[in-house]
């Protein structure tokens, strides 16, 4: 049982869930009806108008109404919106036990101790039917959720089902109600609109409760005989199906679960029991110490139940609804019903993977709680509460995304929780000992480790690390180093979500989210009033999470906000850009698109990515007081400026961000004294004398102005001010200014004018203005003041200002990022294109500076990190001084034993056979022998098979084959390197210890590539290069190995193709050398045309032969070449020449010189002497390349391939293991 909410109160007798809102009504024995919000846990309202206990209460399913009935015989209908009782239905003559609204008609059914059931119309507020027949208290009555039936239970030991079909018919016309009212009395006894359909007898004592199944024709009842009975009915009859025994006292209430195939009952024996409705067996029992249960309620929509007892009520769930899931990249594995399923976030395809439970296993809360997945091994760990905590390990077969219904024999074990900590290792928690077992995929214990704190759950924390949870803290523990990497005090952590880069972790508690670094350094804490359900990190490091009713975000600095509201709880599995992937409570995958603008914007601000910020300001609708307040609060008044139209706010923001020019503009707009004053203060702070002066002028603050002039040395303006003061008759101002100016005469004048003659006199005489002093002395007469003796007066002159005029020099600091964009971006419509461009330009500058800023930050981060690391190291080093035994195995604790062991018993094994030996023993392919290093064997094979005797051209290939047959593994430090034989034809299923043939550096496809290059070189006339390529093919083929027979034929074909080219090219090159022998030239050119060439090459050969012969005036021969050329459809340029030659030759079909060339007589060409060997003449051939030779060449090395001996005996090319087998 998962308790969601609990209240303490007087005995709860009636309960009803609101169908939509998270509300529940509880009617109490004290007469009060309480309205609770069970999600927030608050009492919303109380309704206190009944006298005595209220036993029945029910919400209307669509109107803001509820009905209640109590021991005061009254049925009251209330509007919970207006908090008022709307009216009272009177009629029952004894306590009312239950009341219920009809799901569509305006009816209420009530059951009473007066032995009747009444049906009321709450619109006409009348009783429309009285159902009589029970002969004891009726304890309960309720409508069928769909059909026109009522079920009732009574202390007369019966359950009755009533047919109210006729009642419904009668009320079709609204006028009926009035008529019915008159009829009511006649109906009172033996009413006809509601007749008893079935009377269910079977209970031995009074029946307290009976209720319908929401969909099936079933009834369940509970009675004082401590039994729960299940009844079935059809059109004509109803019968008892089974009895559920187990309660130890009166069963007070019993119901079918709205969503699952179970029955829930409660009893005065202080227990709630859960039964399997199909098997009719008890599944679970929940007991309370002191409280007898009185009432049950089932939520009509969601998976919630409520039970009322002696001292309050509880709202609870029977089973967890969170599907277990694990995400890896785009792959989400999750459990649903009996199956492990797979969901691909990129394609949004959902498929069933394997069954994980046999069908029909009875269980509550035994379903998988957590899932852990190892992508490399394709293994899944499923943990559940079965057997007090256990896990199952499944290896997902590679090919089985099938419908197979066979449950794999999983590897199992018990343990608090189990998670993968490496590709092929998982950790299992032993709760009672706080130990962790590290196991391999065979479910064998590899290692045991005790944990540093009493742990009740473990979570993944990076490879080899575990996050251990206890009641009040979590630690990250490195299993190998046995070191605590981090520790954090937290509320009870339920879920742990790592960021994609494993740098940050979110710890989710019931009402708290803690974001910490990978070493559990606290970054921020968030509190929620509503339960936190799930979360995932987006790619930018923002944590997106859900509560029961919101999707929210949390920025790295702890700022959070709502992204959207939710109707039903969801469990986030992955966040990718604007898409949130989640599972709902039905185990369905959903992809929700959200508007991420707000948090992306805030994140950009936080990360100081001002370019993004600016882009977003320009392109998206981000406004509102909240955003401005946020910006101001976060110290970005200059950004906020962009959003504000109101001048006063703009002025404030401008001042805050020190943007004087905007402030001046705004101040001018507002033009009030206060703003000018504040502007002056800020301008003074910045030393912007011009603006200070302007602001002082605007406020007519002459004292400040004159002081400003004094310190900035603007004496001319100061004297002007003095004049103004004179005009304004401001004597003090005048005097001050005179003082500042050091103008003694003026001061004397002012004093004199003001009537202070003695002062004027003293001033004049002290400053040595004798004339004036004398004049004043006469005016004063006897009142001439005496001057102090013995003092030398000096003229008070203000010091000259350090800097005259102008603004204070300002350090050229980073220009406010937003200054540039300000003018253009802010003022709504006033933006014209030019300004826009300006802004762009400024942005260019600003960007650079952003970079600088970014770098600085990075540096600081780096320093910080270093500092942290330093600390960590200190941590590691301190503390754990406990020395853990020596690194010796137990049996070697005594050195003697091992000394003995090594001196006496051990016999060194004989050396095994290197792979290369195996190769050379097994193979009869020359290439493989060469790779194995058995050059002599390779040579012998080649000699035997192909008659090769000249191995010099093959030397480099032998060595390459040999060199390429081993790789080098540096294993143990400073020890000799390990050579590993590279084998050919590796596949995943190759069995170990079975040696494949050596991997060869040459293969057939390379030769085909070379052939293509050779053709290309031929076409472009690079004949030497072409010859080199073709020869290289001929030289490599003896050392090429192919797999199949058909490939062998291809190899052989390649040899003949290449041979023709080699021969042809050799002759052509020879022809070019023999310039002085035109006959031989013609002959060679002619023979070339008889090599088997590609068509373009043949054309070239013919063209050249034609030319050579024509030049030598052998027109008839040239004619034949021209004719042959024309037959090949040559290009027009060639064809034209050919036609001309044909024409010329037709006129004079003669040859001037005799050639050894008879094209009518088929011939081959000797590969060494380049003379035709006509059919019928004797010849010998090369055993390898099949070139033909005149018999005199017998025994020489082949002139074409340069490898084999002409006329030697040979068995033929062997280049595939398939030939050998």
């Amino acid at each position, binding site marked *: 049982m998962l308790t969601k909410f609990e209240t303490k109160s007087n005995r709860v007798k009636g309960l009803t869930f609101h169908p939509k809102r998270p509300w529940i009504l509880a009617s109490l024995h004290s007469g009060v009806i309480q309205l609770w919000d069970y999600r927030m846990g608050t009492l919303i309202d109380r309704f206190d108008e009944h006298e005595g206990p209220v036993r029945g209460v029910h919400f209307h399913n669509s109107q803001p109404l509820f009905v209640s009935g109590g021991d005061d015989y009254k049925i009251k209908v209330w509007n919970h919106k207006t908090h008022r009782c709307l009216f009272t239905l009177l009629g029952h003559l004894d306590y009312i036990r239950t009341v219920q609204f009809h799901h569509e008609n305006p009816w209420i059914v009530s059951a009473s101790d007066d032995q009747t059931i009444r049906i009321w119309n709450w619109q006409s507020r009348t009783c429309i039917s009285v159902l009589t027949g029970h002969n004891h208290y009726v304890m309960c009555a309720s409508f069928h959720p769909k059909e026109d039936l009522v079920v009732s239970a009574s202390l007369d030991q019966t359950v009755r089902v009533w047919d109210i079909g006729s009642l419904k018919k009668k009320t079709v016309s609204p006028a009926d109600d009035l008529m019915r009212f008159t009829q009511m009395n006649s109906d009172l006894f033996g009413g006809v609109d509601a007749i008893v359909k079935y009377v269910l007898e079977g209970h031995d004592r009074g029946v307290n409760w009976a209720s319908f199944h929401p969909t099936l024709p079933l009834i369940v009842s509970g009675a004082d005989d401590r039994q729960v009975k299940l009844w079935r009915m059809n059109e004509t009859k109803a019968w008892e199906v089974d009895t559920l025994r187990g309660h130890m006292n009166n069963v007070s209430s019993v119901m079918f679960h709205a969503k699952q195939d179970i029955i829930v009952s409660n009893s005065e024996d202080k227990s709630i029991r859960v039964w399997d409705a199909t098997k009719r067996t008890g599944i679970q029992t929940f007991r309370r110490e002191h409280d007898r249960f009185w009432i049950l309620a089932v939520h009509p929509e969601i998976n919630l139940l409520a039970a009322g007892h002696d001292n309050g009520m509880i709202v609870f769930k029977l089973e967890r609804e969170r599907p277990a899931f694990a995400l890896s990249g785009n792959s989400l594995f999750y459990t649903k019903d009996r199956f492990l399923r797979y969901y691909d976030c990129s394609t949004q395809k959902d498929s069933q993977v394997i069954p994980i439970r046999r069908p029909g296993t009875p269980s509550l809360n035994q379903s998988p709680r957590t899932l852990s997945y190892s992508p490399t091994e394709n293994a899944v760990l499923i943990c559940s509460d079965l057997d007090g905590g256990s896990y199952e390990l499944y290896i997902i077969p590679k090919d089985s995304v099938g419908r197979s219904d066979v449950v794999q024999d999983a590897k199992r074990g018990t343990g608090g929780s189990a998670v993968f900590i490496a590709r092929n*290792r998982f950790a299992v928690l032993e709760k009672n000992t706080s130990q962790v077992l590290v196991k*391999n995929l065979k479910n064998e214990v590899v*290692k045991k480790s005790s944990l540093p704190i009493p742990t009740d759950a473990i979570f993944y924390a990076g490879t080899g690390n575990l996050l251990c949870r206890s009641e009040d803290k979590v630690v990250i523990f490195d*299993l190998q*180093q*046995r*070191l605590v990497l981090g520790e954090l005090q937290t509320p009870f952590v339920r879920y742990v979500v790592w960021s994609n880069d494993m740098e940050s972790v979110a710890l989710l508690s019931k009402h708290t989210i803690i974001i910490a670094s990978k070493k559990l350094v606290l970054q921020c804490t968030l509190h929620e009033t509503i339960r936190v359900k799930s979360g995932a990190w987006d790619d930018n490091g923002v944590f997106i999470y859900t509560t029961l009713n919101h999707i929210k975000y949390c920025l790295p600095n702890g700022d959070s906000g709502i992204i959207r509201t939710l109707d039903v709880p969801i469990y986030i599995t992955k966040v990718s850009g604007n898409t949130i992937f989640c599972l709902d409570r039905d185990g369905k995958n959903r992809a929700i698109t959200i508007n991420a603008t707000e948090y992306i914007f805030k994140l950009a601000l936080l990360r100081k990515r001002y370019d993004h910020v600016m882009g977003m300001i320009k392109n998206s609708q981000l406004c509102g007081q909240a955003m401005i307040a946020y910006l101001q609060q976060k110290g970005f008044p200059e950004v906020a400026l962009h959003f504000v139209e109101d001048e006063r706010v703009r002025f404030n923001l401008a001042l805050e961000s020190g943007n004087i020019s905007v402030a001046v503009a705004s101040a001018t707009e507002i033009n009030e004294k206060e703003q000018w004053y504040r502007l002056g203060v800020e301008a003074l702070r910045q030393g912007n004398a011009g603006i200070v002066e302007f602001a002082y002028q605007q406020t007519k603050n002459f004292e400040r102005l004159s002081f400003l002039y004094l310190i900035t040395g603007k004496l001319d303006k100061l004297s002007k001010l003095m004049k103004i003061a004179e005009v304004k008759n401001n004597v003090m101002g005048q005097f001050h200014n005179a003082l500042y100016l050091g103008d003694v005469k003026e001061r004397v004048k002012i004093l004199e004018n003001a009537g202070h003659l003695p002062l004027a006199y003293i001033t004049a005489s002290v400053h040595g203005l004798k004339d004036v002093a004398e004049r004043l002395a006469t005016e004063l007469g006897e009142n001439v003041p005496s001057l102090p003796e013995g003092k030398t007066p000096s003229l008070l002159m203000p010091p000259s200002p350090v800097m005259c005029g102008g603004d204070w020099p300002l350090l050229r600091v980073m220009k406010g990022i937003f200054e540039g964009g300000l003018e253009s971006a802010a003022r709504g419509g006033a933006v014209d294109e030019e300004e826009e461009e300006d802004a762009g330009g400024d942005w260019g500058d600003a960007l650079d500076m952003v970079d600088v800023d970014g770098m600085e930050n990075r540096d600081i981060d780096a320093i910080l990190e270093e500092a942290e690391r330093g600390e960590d190291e200190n941590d*590691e*080093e*301190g503390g754990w*001084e406990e020395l*853990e*035994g020596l*690194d*010796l*195995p137990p049996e*070697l604790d005594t*050195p003697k034993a091992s000394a003995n*062991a*090594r001196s006496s018993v*051990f016999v*060194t*094994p004989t*050396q095994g*056979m290197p*792979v290369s030996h195996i190769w050379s023993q097994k193979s009869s392919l020359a290439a493989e022998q060469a790779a194995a*290093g058995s*050059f*002599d064997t*390779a*040579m012998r094979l080649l000699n035997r098979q192909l008659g090769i005797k000249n*191995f010099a051209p093959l*030397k480099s290939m032998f*060595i*390459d084959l040999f*060199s*390429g047959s*081993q*790789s*080098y*593994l*540096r*294993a*143990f*430090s*400073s*020890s*000799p*390197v*390990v050579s*590993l034989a*590279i084998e050919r034809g*590796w596949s995943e299923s*190759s*069995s*170990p210890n079975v040696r*494949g043939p050596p*991997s060869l*550096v040459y293969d057939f496809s*390379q030769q085909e590539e070379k052939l293509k290059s050779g053709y290309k070189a031929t076409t472009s006339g690079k004949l030497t290069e072409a010859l080199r390529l073709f020869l290289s093919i001929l030289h490599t083929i003896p050392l090429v190995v192919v797999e199949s027979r058909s490939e062998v034929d291809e190899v052989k074909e390649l040899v003949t193709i290449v041979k023709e080219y080699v021969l042809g090219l050799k002759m052509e090159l020879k022809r070019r050398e023999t310039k002085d022998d035109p006959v031989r030239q013609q002959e060679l050119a002619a023979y070339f045309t008889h090599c088997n060439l590609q068509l373009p090459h043949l054309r070239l050969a013919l063209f050249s032969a034609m030319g050579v012969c024509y030049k030598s005036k052998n027109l008839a021969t040239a004619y034949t070449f021209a004719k042959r050329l024309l037959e090949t459809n040559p290009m027009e340029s060639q064809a034209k020449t050919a036609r001309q030659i044909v024409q010329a030759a037709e006129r004079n079909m003669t040859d001037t010189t005799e050639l050894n060339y008879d094209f009518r007589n088929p011939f081959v060409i000797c590969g060494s002497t380049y003379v035709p060997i006509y059919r019928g003449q004797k010849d010998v051939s090369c055993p390898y390349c099949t070139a033909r030779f005149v018999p005199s060449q017998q025994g020489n090395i082949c002139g074409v391939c340069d490898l084999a001996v002409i006329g030697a005996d040979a068995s033929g090319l062997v280049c595939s293991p398939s030939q050998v087998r």
Partner: protein
Amino acid sequence: MAGMGSGPDHLFNLRNTFYLGAYQTAINNSEIPNLSPEDAVERDCLVFRSYIALGSYQLVISEIDEAAATPLQAVKLLAMYLSSPDNKESTISSVKEWLADSTIGNNAILRLIAGTIFMHEEDYNEALKHTHAGGTMDLHALNVQIFIKMHRSDYAEKQLRVMQQYDEDHTLTQLATAWLNLAVGGSKIQEAYLIFQDFSERYPMTCLVLNSKAVCCMQMGNFDEAESLLLEALNKDAKDPETLANLVVCSLHVGKSSSRYLSQLKLSHPEHVLVKRVSSAEDNFERALQSIA
């Protein structure tokens, strides 16, 4: 070989960095306070062995004086052996002398060094005489390698099983598993690859791990991936002999010229197996020519 323990293992990181071939990192991060005397000696051994792996033999020889502990003296012997091939006879005789000394003859490091030296001498019999009993993870790992060199993977597997019993997740156990997997070949190569992959995810990439991965790739016939891994390794250390040697092999297979890497290897490591192989192959070829003529 602490099986199950509770105290922290101060040298864990240092050992790992050493085993995975991050020798300079090991040296740089060797300042660990609060070490017990035994741990301190082990630390020093690791540091000096790192220097040896980097080729700084003289530094090791001059830093370790007469007063140093036996394990360090043993390490010094290795440095002497590797630094002057001409005087190796005298080094070997002092190794033998020390091994015969009952007070220090059983020292694990000494035996390890002896095993390493005799392995270089290709005297596996002598090497195993001192190492076969094991006693430390290092010794067992060395045994695995000796048996692999002897092409006796059955024996190597037995050694590995001992290691797995002590600590299956120990870096050396994992490495030795991978070595053996490579030696037996077939489907095991993939497992070896995964082990090196794990290392490369968990620790900073080293030439050693990159090379090992590349070797796996080559064994699986995936020469293109091997080449890119090796080039990455070459970036880290342009003179690493195994990187160069494997690049030679790899280039041959992908049909590129290998001569540049080979000449580099010949210049920097004239004693490398591949260099010797190539020159012996040339002689071999001439001899074969004569035998066939």
